[in-house]
């Protein structure tokens, strides 16, 4: 498979969004097939990233998520160099490394050094594959490399978009299936283990799902930026609520909002790369949530002094016992 290239800007620049009223502008935008494909793949990927990212942040595995996103780069370039489908390399590399990290590391608190050293080497391998790929084929290698690193969601084809959406749907189903035990194990690993939750199985399984998510998301926003899609909406959701299920839903919603807004922004301003626009909105969401949560905490503290409860109290309500599997 040749990697999808972004459509030339000259085709897109003339007569686009800036119609007289926003309704016409949006319907103009939705009329383009490349926007439809981007929206289909992007929505599914953002939903998945928001859900998975929430658990990544909750479990404190941010560095592992970061490492897996870099592994996606090496996997994609290995596939390019070997001449097989890009996605094969992406998924194989990220899922294998995710499982390996899960088996080796457990909760990962002790081995940031191991993660760091390993992923520096995996990236080094990526550079080797890049050199091999550049040496052995002639067509627009630089663009392919930039697409793997930074994504090319506007260049995604109809079949690739629907494949990405189906894979994302499958992964979302897996996440929702393991959400309850995973939440329990993330909040209190020891109690969960005592209650019969297979904690040692869940860890590697979850990191494999994170790996598959990284492989999915790198098709949309690139191997270097997908980490933002995992971390920013989840971090924003955690600032806004301490209820785990609300936070999970909020994280997914914020990720999808950043995706939609970013796609529209990049469409309206052709100079902005789509992945930059998506990341900017995700970062803005986080900054906004951080400021809002500071204000909220202050109000809560003031009410605490008067001893009156406050509606929308952001303090934790779900306890580990509440989440225990019902016998």
């Amino acid at each position: 498979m040749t990697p999808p290239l972004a459509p030339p800007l000259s085709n897109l620049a003339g007569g686009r969004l800036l119609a007289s009223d926003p309704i016409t502008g949006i319907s103009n935008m939705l009329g383009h097939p490349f926007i439809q494909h981007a929206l289909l793949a992007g929505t599914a990927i953002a939903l998945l990233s928001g859900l998975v990212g929430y658990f990544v942040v909750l479990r404190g595995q941010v560095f592992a998520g970061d490492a897996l996103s870099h592994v996606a780069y090496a996997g994609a370039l290995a596939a390019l160099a070997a001449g097989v489908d890009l996605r094969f390399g992406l998924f194989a590399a990220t899922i294998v490394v995710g499982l390996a990290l899960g088996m080796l590391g457990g909760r990962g608190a002790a081995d940031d050094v191991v993660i760091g050293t390993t992923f520096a080497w995996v990236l080094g391998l990526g550079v080797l594959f890049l050199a091999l790929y550049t040496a052995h084929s002639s067509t627009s290698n630089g663009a392919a490399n930039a697409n793997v690193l930074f994504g090319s969601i506007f260049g995604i084809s109809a079949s690739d978009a629907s494949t990405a959406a189906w894979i994302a749907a499958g992964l979302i189903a897996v996440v929702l299936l393991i959400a309850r035990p995973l939440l329990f194990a993330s909040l209190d690993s020891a109690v969960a283990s005592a209650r019969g939750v297979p904690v040692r199985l869940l860890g590697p399984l979850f990191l494999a799902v994170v790996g598959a998510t990284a492989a999915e998301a790198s098709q949309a926003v690139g191997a270097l930026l997908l980490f933002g899609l995992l971390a920013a909406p989840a971090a924003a959701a955690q600032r806004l609520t301490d209820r785990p299920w609300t936070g999970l839903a909020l994280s997914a919603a914020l990720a999808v909002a950043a995706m939609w807004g970013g796609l529209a922004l990049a469409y309206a301003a052709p100079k902005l790369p789509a992945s930059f626009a998506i990341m900017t909105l995700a970062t803005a969401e986080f900054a906004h949530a951080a400021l809002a949560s500071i204000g909220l905490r202050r109000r809560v503290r003031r009410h605490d002094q008067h001893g009156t409860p406050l509606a929308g109290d952001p303090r934790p309500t779900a306890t580990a016992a509440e989440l225990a599997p019902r016998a």
Partner: protein
Amino acid sequence: MTGLSWNLVDDVRQMLAFHFMLNALRAGTIVAVVAGAVGYFMVLRRQAFAGHTLAVIGFPGAAGATWLGISPVFGYFGFCIAGALVIAALPSGGRPNAGLGGYGEESAVIGTVQAFALACGFLFVSLYKGFLSGLNNLLFGTIIGVSDNQVLTLLIAGVICLAMLAALARPLLFSSIDPAVARARGVPVRLVAAAFLVLLGVAAAGTSQVTGSLLVFALLVAPAATAARLTARPALGLSLSVLIALAVTWVGETIAFFSPYPIGFWVSSLAFAAFLLATTYRAAADRIGRRQPRGSTSPTDAGITATVGAA
């Protein structure tokens, strides 16, 4: 351009005949010493994630500088130092180290900063057309791009960095190993932490210019981690870390010169091989040590306790 013969002396002479190679080795030497030393403290303080983020923040700096037509050196240093100050100023949420180590919930904030920085870098790259080969050099390093001026800048930055590290070493070691006791003894722990982050930023910016933004870890974390597996004595570990970084850089640059594959691959592979060897050695030594129960603590604890006691 060149071939490898069996005569090593000849090979080295042939390599050093190229001015760019001389510059690459000079820059590599400076960078390896600084990265080995600063990296040792980074590993000790478990701030690998912060180090990675600072390295990555250099990328938009360099890309932006190239876009504006100024030397990327200023972009690297400017952004890395500014990033260090921002991270130092972020609220730590009670657990000062969790965010920087990449395992606390706070680290999601740093992750967000990192992704946004990369996105900005991509924006600058796409605004500056025809930059794609430069993109790879910024991200993955090159051995042919180091100018005389750059070597001089690196030398000045490296000397300042090492001087600051030497001045900071004792309180830094103390507050890395036991922050609570250090604070009780009057060490300004927060100030030391912030100063160290700036040093880390300088080291990351310098290393980026040899290995590229993404492979800084090959010199910043791997040699230090290798040294930490081999010995627990800070002074010995520090020297070992610097030596390993130097060896990895010199051998990596030499192989990169004679082979068609890029420097980033060689340096990161050599560093990883050293780390694997040291890990295997440590595992074997621990197993042997466990079989002879002489009642002593592990060498790690004993060494650090002894040193802190002396401090």
